């Protein structure tokens, strides 16, 4: 099996609104950023894959607009997922494993500011039984949070600690939207308070993947992807045990996460309560540094926040701050879909 690594990562400064920029104007600086880190030109990239959502943009085929930023003429080998960019990275990883490419550019972006993201996300729900009720993303997360409280897995003070720890960690992250201490606030949907919910904002991220010796040429300490897997659970919330995430656990197992301890975990938990579920499902002890970037509670550009978890974990390996990291991305209500990757740096 070929070895594949993340060799570069860039992200925007995530903001509440970027209406002075079109999507391609927002994405282009991060594309140039990752290429500059590796010294690659756009024409050197064998495969390009992106993630975004038409429902955020409010128009069909919206991803084609940002293709202008990658230099898509003459024709390139390109693909797109209507998902978080973490799943675009998975597709690119498979492409490199098959030997059809040696380098890949993966990017994703989301502008939540033009619409109302709580309403927009209702459109990904079951259209027969659920979507007509318009249960928004906070409401569904709140149902999960109450189930966790009833089960004795957490309480409102513990959730507030997660929120405070995340935004405290983000104080050192210049890209984060919410940095440092802030009030926990009133209930948005009880039991979740403002502080338990992610900021709504716009942003983009990009990574470069490379295989084998090509990765070693492009990066001083590549973040090798030792395993990656993604799993999904029933779409009906009433069928699932909301206090657990068997799909995250299975993905982690298949990615090899339990073979040896990790020192860092970048978890895509947009709501504080979801970190409780993931820590349990992924069997993360107190010695694991969780979300040193601040995580999705500090910046949650929809469709990019999962890819950013992979990028942040890889960047820590690049900098020598981690040797073995777990990166996680989620999609759908109440952690319906979960992707787990295990990244490692070679001995320093």
């Amino acid at each position, binding site marked *: 099996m070929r070895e594949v690594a993340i060799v570069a990562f860039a992200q925007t400064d995530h903001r509440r609104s970027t209406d002075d920029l079109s999507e391609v104007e927002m994405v282009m600086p991060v594309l140039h950023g990752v290429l500059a880190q590796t010294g690659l030109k*756009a024409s050197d990239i064998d495969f390009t894959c992106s993630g975004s959502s038409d429902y955020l943009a409010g128009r069909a085929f919206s991803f084609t607009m940002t293709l202008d930023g990658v230099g898509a003429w003459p024709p390139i080998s390109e693909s797109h997922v209507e998902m978080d960019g973490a799943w675009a990275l998975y597709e690119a990883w498979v492409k490199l494993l098959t030997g059809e490419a040696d380098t890949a550019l993966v990017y994703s972006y989301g502008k939540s500011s033009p619409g109302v993201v709580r309403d927009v996300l209702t459109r990904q729900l079951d259209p027969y039984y659920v979507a007509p*009720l318009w249960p928004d993303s906070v409401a569904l997360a709140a149902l999960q949070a109450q189930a966790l409280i009833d089960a004795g897995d957490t309480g409102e003070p513990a959730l507030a600690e997660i929120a405070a720890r995340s935004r405290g960690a983000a104080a050192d992250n210049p890209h984060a939207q919410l940095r440092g201490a802030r009030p926990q606030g009133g209930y948005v949907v009880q039991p979740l308070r403002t502080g338990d919910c992610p900021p709504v904002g716009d942003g983009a991220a990009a990574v470069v993947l490379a295989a084998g010796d090509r990765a070693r040429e492009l990066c001083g300490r590549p973040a090798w992807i030792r395993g990656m897997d993604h799993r999904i659970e029933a779409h009906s919330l009433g069928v699932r045990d909301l206090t657990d995430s068997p799909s995250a656990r299975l993905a982690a197992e298949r990615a090899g996460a339990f073979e040896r301890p990790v020192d860092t975990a970048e978890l895509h938990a947009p709501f504080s309560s979801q970190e409780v579920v993931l820590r349990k499902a992924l069997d993360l002890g107190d010695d694991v540094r969780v979300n040193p970037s601040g995580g999705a509670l500090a910046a949650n550009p929809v469709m990019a926040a999962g890819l950013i978890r992979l990028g942040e974990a890889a960047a820590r390996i690049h900098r020598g701050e981690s040797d073995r990291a777990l990166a996680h991305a989620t999609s759908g209500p109440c952690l319906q879909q979960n992707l787990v990757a295990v990244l490692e740096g070679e001995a320093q």
Partner: protein
Amino acid sequence: MTAAPSPEVLRAPLVVEFPFTRSLGPVQSAFLTGLRERTVLGVRTSDGKVLVPPVEYDPVTADEIRDLVEVAPTGTVTTWAWNPDPRRDQPLATPFAWVLVKLDGADTALLHVLDATGPDAVRTGQRVRIRWAGERTGAITDIACFEPYEGEPGAATPHTGEFEDTVTGIIAQARLDYVYSPGRAQSDYINALAGRKTVGERCPSCRKVYVPPRGACPTCGVATDEQVEVGPAGTLTTYCIVNIKARGLDIEVPYVYGHIALDGAGLPLHGRIGGIPYDQVRMGLRVEPVWTEGGRFPDHYRPTGEPDADYDTYKELI
């Protein structure tokens, strides 16, 4: 000329409405028709569990399942969340609780809302019953909401799933509201058009001038930031004759729609050709924009009266 900071980034409301017509399979059809008749149906899985709402395929074995059972309109809250600020289109306009309810006789929970006086009046384990909507059409909203109810549990009993006048589809209405902003490059273009100027942007790498500009050169993948005024006249590079009238469009058919390479532009934009009979339009025709009074963009392009452009001058732009 380098672009000055944008005087005004444009914004406009954008409403997206979509009425999806969706077919129901036999199980969903029975369930939603049942709701219309105040009957709640579940489906029994291979291992004997009753799923409400029902699905067509067993979540564990993926086998097709059709074994319908009727469950009670009463049940127990398995988890809840108090919603102090109802949003548009949610089932109740006053503060309410989102609930997952395990109906008596069912093994799984249904998502809906509970009408209660406040969060202190809701708890996990609470007994509730369905409040039916006055007018029912065969939709999940035929359940208006749940309400608190202390009563004896019902049970699951077999049901044929057969009704008269079965509901076979639903129309899933949705409306999402946006405030669209086209960003810096396109705002500059649209603002310039309002001043009856057409501006493109030159790629610093390949020197091509893009009209309308989108802020990036799709060939080089770099920002285009040098603003260039093009036109006003241009050459028709190709065209088509439109014979079908679009709804709400106040233009007589047939009319001509074409690609117009404005002088100085590196690629053609498109627009309607007027001021000439449709059957006399030809490639190479020299045209210029026509603004109507108060118009923020050209209404159409008309012949300038110049001789036709030589094919070699525009063949790269077709």
